[in-house]
């Protein structure tokens, strides 16, 4: 085990994949010489050459479109979108093309493509550096959607995604890049190097897509969450005296429903926690599935704690971002119901 930040773990995953498989190529805006604005691809161009890791023009459409073409050729492109907020110009290539190529060609052409993007808030990034667009991707048949919450998973999920025969969206919670964050923005963060979850296996391994992880076992409430919110959930659970079971979904689609159902059947209560805007957020789908699978085991209604239905604000960031206090209040409400 080595201590790594999430950035280092992601970089390492690229390195391992590129060394193992010549077909892996890495590109995106500022990804080549500079190694990406978050430095997730630093050193790869120097090591593997300019034709395997390179800068692209600022066209998310072009980046993903090139990736679809390359994947259909037989390469394994791994793309960085500089911020998830900038994926929209590429949505057509993702939704209409990458996601449907296998289906519409009956497997004649496939699209083993990985699209990574720094996601989520908590860095005072305002409207255009803070969004969590997972709901869009999970609505698209043909895509898989992943959001890691720690370095070990970030590396293992990325390696699994690169090997996956279908397109995978990886949403990287940028608030966790350098260290986890417990939702108390006024307190210092523990860097990954000193954090138990900063332990990363060296070399090659994968974390399978479609498998959740239980981060805390508990008996009274199940908390479903992912990404940065895992640590907010943990902070809330630690502070509020409700014995919560915390599930880190890791992969949003395909969803590990078995793990969820087992937990909710045990606890009888469920809280869903995400940063994204509430209405039609992925929390709605989680709520629907829990309701469908566990209706007669539910002892109280399911509660969502999410970002508000506003664009992501700048100055009011910490009023927008779901806080431990809001989670605690919801946990108490669940227990009272």
């Amino acid at each position, binding site marked *: 085990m080595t201590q790594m930040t999430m950035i280092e773990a992601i970089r390492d995953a690229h390195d391992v994949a590129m060394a193992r498989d010549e077909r892996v*190529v890495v590109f995106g805006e500022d990804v080549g010489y500079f190694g990406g604005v978050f430095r997730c691809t630093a050193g790869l161009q120097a090591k593997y050459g300019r*034709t*395997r890791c390179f800068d*692209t*023009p600022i*066209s998310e*459409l*072009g980046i993903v*479109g*090139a*990736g*679809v*073409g*390359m994947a*259909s*050729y*037989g*390469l394994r492109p791994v793309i960085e979108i500089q911020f998830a907020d900038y994926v929209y*110009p590429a949505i*057509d*290539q993702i939704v*209409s*093309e990458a996601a449907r*190529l*296998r*289906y*519409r*060609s*009956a*497997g*004649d*052409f*496939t699209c083993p493509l990985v699209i990574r993007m720094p996601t989520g808030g908590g860095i005072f990034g305002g409207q255009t550096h803070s969004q969590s667009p997972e709901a869009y991707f999970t609505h698209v*048949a*043909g895509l*898989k959607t992943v959001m890691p919450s720690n370095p070990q998973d970030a590396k293992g999920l990325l390696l699994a995604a690169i090997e996956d*025969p*279908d397109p995978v969206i990886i949403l990287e919670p940028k608030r966790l890049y350098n260290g986890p964050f417990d939702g108390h923005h006024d307190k210092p963060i523990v860097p990954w190097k000193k954090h138990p979850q900063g332990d990363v296996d060296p070399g090659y391994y994968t974390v399978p897509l*479609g498998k959740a992880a239980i981060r805390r076992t508990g008996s009274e409430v199940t908390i479903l969450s992912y990404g940065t919110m895992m640590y907010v959930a943990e902070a809330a659970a630690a502070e509020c005296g409700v014995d919560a079971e915390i599930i880190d979904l890791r992969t949003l*689609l*395909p*969803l590990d*429903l078995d793990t969820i159902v087992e937990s909710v059947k045990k606890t009888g209560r469920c809280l869903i926690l995400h940063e994204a805007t509430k209405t039609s957020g992925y929390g709605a789908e989680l709520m629907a599935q829990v309701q469908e699978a566990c209706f007669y085991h539910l002892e109280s209604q399911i509660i969502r704690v999410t970002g508000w239905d506003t664009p992501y604000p700048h100055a009011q960031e910490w009023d927008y971002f779901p806080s431990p206090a809001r989670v605690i209040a919801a946990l108490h409400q669940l227990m009272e119901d």
Partner: protein
Amino acid sequence: MSDDVAPLYLNVPEPGCRPGDEPDFSDFVIPKAGAVDRPAVDVNPDEIRDMAFSIIRVLNAEGEAVGPWSGELSADELIEGLRHMVTLRTFDARMMIAQRQGKTSFYIQHLGEEAVSCAFRKALLDDDMNFPTYRQAGLLIAGDYPLIDMMNQIYSNSQDPLHGRQLPIMYSSKEHGFFSISGNLGTQFMQSVGWAMASAISGDTRIATGWIGDGSTAESDFHAALVFASTYTAPVVLNIVNNQWAISTFQGIARGGVGTFAARGHGFGIPSVRVDGNDYLAVHSVARWASERARSGLGPTLIEHVTYRAGGHSSSDDPSAYRSKEEGAAWPLGDPIERLKQHLIVLGVWSDQQHADLEQEVLDKIVKAQKESEAIGTLGAGAMPSPRDMFEGVYEEMPPHLVKQRQEAGY
């Protein structure tokens, strides 16, 4: 609002000719066959800017092949080309009827544009990859893709290679170098550049071709393709098929006031040429030139094929609502099949009788395939793809939620 300045106004371009008007192509400047030089493939793009404003033509009004772009194809190859075009036209005519008979939901024909895809295909190698739109089935026909497979797809029957999932005519055949057609305009243009980049990254020798319609050049993917192709000197030939119309919208709406579609390449330093798209020899020759450029590592070429959509946009369209019925007949570049036939007759290797025989032979072949295919099934009748197929192939491995849905659906 200042008082001393004239008010602004919005200029909305209109075609010269709407229903009831007299077609008038007198503004359409057509260079003489043979008039355009054939530069070396490694010419400096800056030196051939004028090619984006001219038209490369080989067949003259007398049916002779003239000038530096002629002379590459043998009589046999030309007759084969004629056969491909006649096959495509006959196939289209039969399928349009089948559509009207309710045997399929939708059809798109190539009437008047057969030379573009048929001739182009013969300039490529078998393992090159084309990224076509819905109006380049000639790439399949000239590549000897089985007609019955096309029909099975059109009829969405149980032998449909795409399992009924995709619209008719949105073919896919990796084996025949034909990328899965999307239906979303433009997307495949950028993908062709990506595929070509992959070939270059891999040290391969295969090249890609991208295809887009005049109207669709306005789409973002067109721009992205030019940017990426130019930046990475991708081994790709980028084709614009300017058939003058985008459904009811004339090409002026996409082209702006002035210029040509080919000229769009200049901003990227991409050699850009226009070719008479109704001239089999010219298209073939230009395709050779451009694919040689790509294969030699010289990068992309942008080709505008100047042609005319003689039929409706699709089986859902009636063009008489928005353009003059006489416009097609007035189109000054003629009919590609007629022109090649005429050339072969001038060459002394063809006759009206041989042509009639060819037409009959092609028709027989198509009718035979059609019978076979219809015996399997047509949309909603006979053997259909299974509903189970609907759930398959969304991912390589079916995830649990889809298995559950499939079971819920009863399959």
